[in-house]
């Protein structure tokens, strides 16, 4: 298809799976952390904020190496997870998803946090005076009003996950069909003489997916804005 090698297609499919899983799995945590950072005062708030943002400022290779140390077969968490649940991250697509999720997490949290901070806490108070329990307030008021931020955050995270390279290749290497994501594949094809064509096709696919995600987010955001009138 499109004159692409099976290897290249595998990379595209794997990248999509890795990015979707990374986004979906980190979303609930992202919503929770964003809400906590925006609304709650608790000891260690600044520390949490720092940790969340760390992947944004650390060299990706460093993040990847830290992941390898922690979640690798010999790492404390990795060994525990493998022994207890049989989940293995090292040199596995799940590891690529973990790396992508962690690298994309700051972007997701920032976008959601902005939407929480833009929200008038008075609306939640109003819902409470109308008889809503905390959970109901969250589900009927807070969460729907966070939706634009959640959409933006998810799409940003997805796009970032699609493009993640440094941490992924350090943590789970570049094994075709197993851990070779789209950017790793582009990198690999560029190393092979005469494979630039494949690399360029992959680049175009990558651009198309990114643009598609961006357009989707614009459409959804505009629909949400229209529903809420001028706000």
């Amino acid at each position, binding site marked *: 298809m499109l004159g692409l090698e099976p290897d290249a297609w595998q990379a595209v499919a794997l990248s999509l799976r890795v990015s979707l899983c990374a986004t979906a799995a980190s979303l609930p945590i992202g919503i929770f952390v964003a809400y906590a950072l925006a609304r709650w005062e608790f000891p260690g708030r600044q520390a949490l904020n720092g940790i969340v943002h760390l992947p944004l400022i650390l060299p990706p290779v460093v993040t990847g190496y830290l992941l390898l140390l922690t979640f690798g077969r010999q790492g404390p968490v990795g060994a525990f997870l493998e022994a207890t649940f049989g989940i293995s991250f090292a040199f596995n697509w799940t590891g690529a998803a973990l790396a992508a999720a962690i690298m994309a997490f700051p972007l997701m949290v920032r976008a959601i946090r902005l939407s929480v901070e833009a929200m*008038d806490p*008075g*609306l939640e*108070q*109003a*819902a*409470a*005076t*109308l*008889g*809503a*329990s905390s959970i*109901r307030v969250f589900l*009927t*008021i807070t969460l*729907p*009003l966070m*939706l634009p931020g959640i959409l933006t955050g998810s799409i940003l995270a997805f796009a970032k996950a699609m493009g993640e390279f440094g941490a992924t290749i350090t943590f789970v290497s570049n094994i075709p069909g197993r851990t070779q994501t789209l950017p790793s594949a582009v990198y690999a094809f560029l190393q092979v003489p005469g494979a630039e064509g494949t690399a360029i096709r992959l680049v175009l696919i990558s651009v198309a997916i990114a643009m598609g995600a961006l357009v989707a987010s614009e459409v959804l955001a505009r629909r949400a804005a229209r*529903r*809420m*009138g*001028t*706000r």
Partner: protein
Amino acid sequence: MTLSIRLRHAQSEFELDVDFTTPPGVTALFGHSGAGKTTIVQAVAGLLKPDSGRISIDDALLEDSDRGFWTPPRNRRVGYVFQDGRLFPHMTVLKNLRYGANLAGVRDPAEEDRVVDLLGLSDYLHRYPGTLSGGEKQRVAIGRALLSRPRLLLLDEPLAALDPARREEILPHLERLRDNSGLPILYVSHAPSEVARLATTVVLLERGKVLKLGPASEILSDPQMVPAIGPREAGAILAATVIRHHDDGLSELQTSAGTLLLPAVSAAPGRSLRVRIAAHDVILSREAPKGLSALNILPARVCALRLGDGPGAIVQVETGTDRLLARITRRSVVALGLEPGADCYAIIKSVAVAREDIGRG
């Protein structure tokens, strides 16, 4: 229904320390910004936990810090109308209206129709709050609070963010609410004209303390309360009944002291009204004036007066069974020999009374 409030709460500039019980009807919490009005209302709603206090509606205790008793806002059944409306932007007007009722499981289509009708909301039901004007939003907010079946309605400066025209659009709805719903209302305001139109009882607050509590007509015509209200804002209420409307655009009203001619009033003959007469619109004369353009000359007697620190003075006069306030100069007080018991005439220019000063009695 009586609402009992005892609160102590340290604030940045002063300590709020109030203890009062309100009779049925509309109770206005009145005072300058920062007098503690909103703090009290928030405490009643449970949105603010006071340092100590006890709040009850009739026999229902809402909180008592001595006994460590506290009811969360969702269980208090108080309808809170915020200054900024606080409509849920992602829900239509109808969904906003039904939010509280759905939660309480008391949705009653007949009641819903009644409230929609009372507040004139039928044209907006399927619109989103973002497309409504400020006045429309406030009406929806009032309807939403009403439909949650509250025991008490809290109106926290619901008109403060609106321009005079929008205010005039909502005030009749509030008057109807007062007269028809039987729901006790705690109304926060710093606008004397609103208080004069709506309140049955006034709680005058100053720096966190209750300065005075009493019937609206009494408090608003008390010269000693003028500094707290503000001399430019002071004005008393006259009870009046519409007699007839004249062809020249004036309406004739009966008061306890005589007839009053005012610019066309919209109410039908026989209706009772409350008319707010601003203190600076009243002229006093010792003799019955002749050849004067002012149409309203009511016989009066000086009851009390309060000399200001500056050149001004506030004179309270009795006209029939009502009391008026006149803001004049200290010089005139001396020149006319105005002292308690002195007979005089109160002169009111018809055109000085604006539409916003006239409310349903």
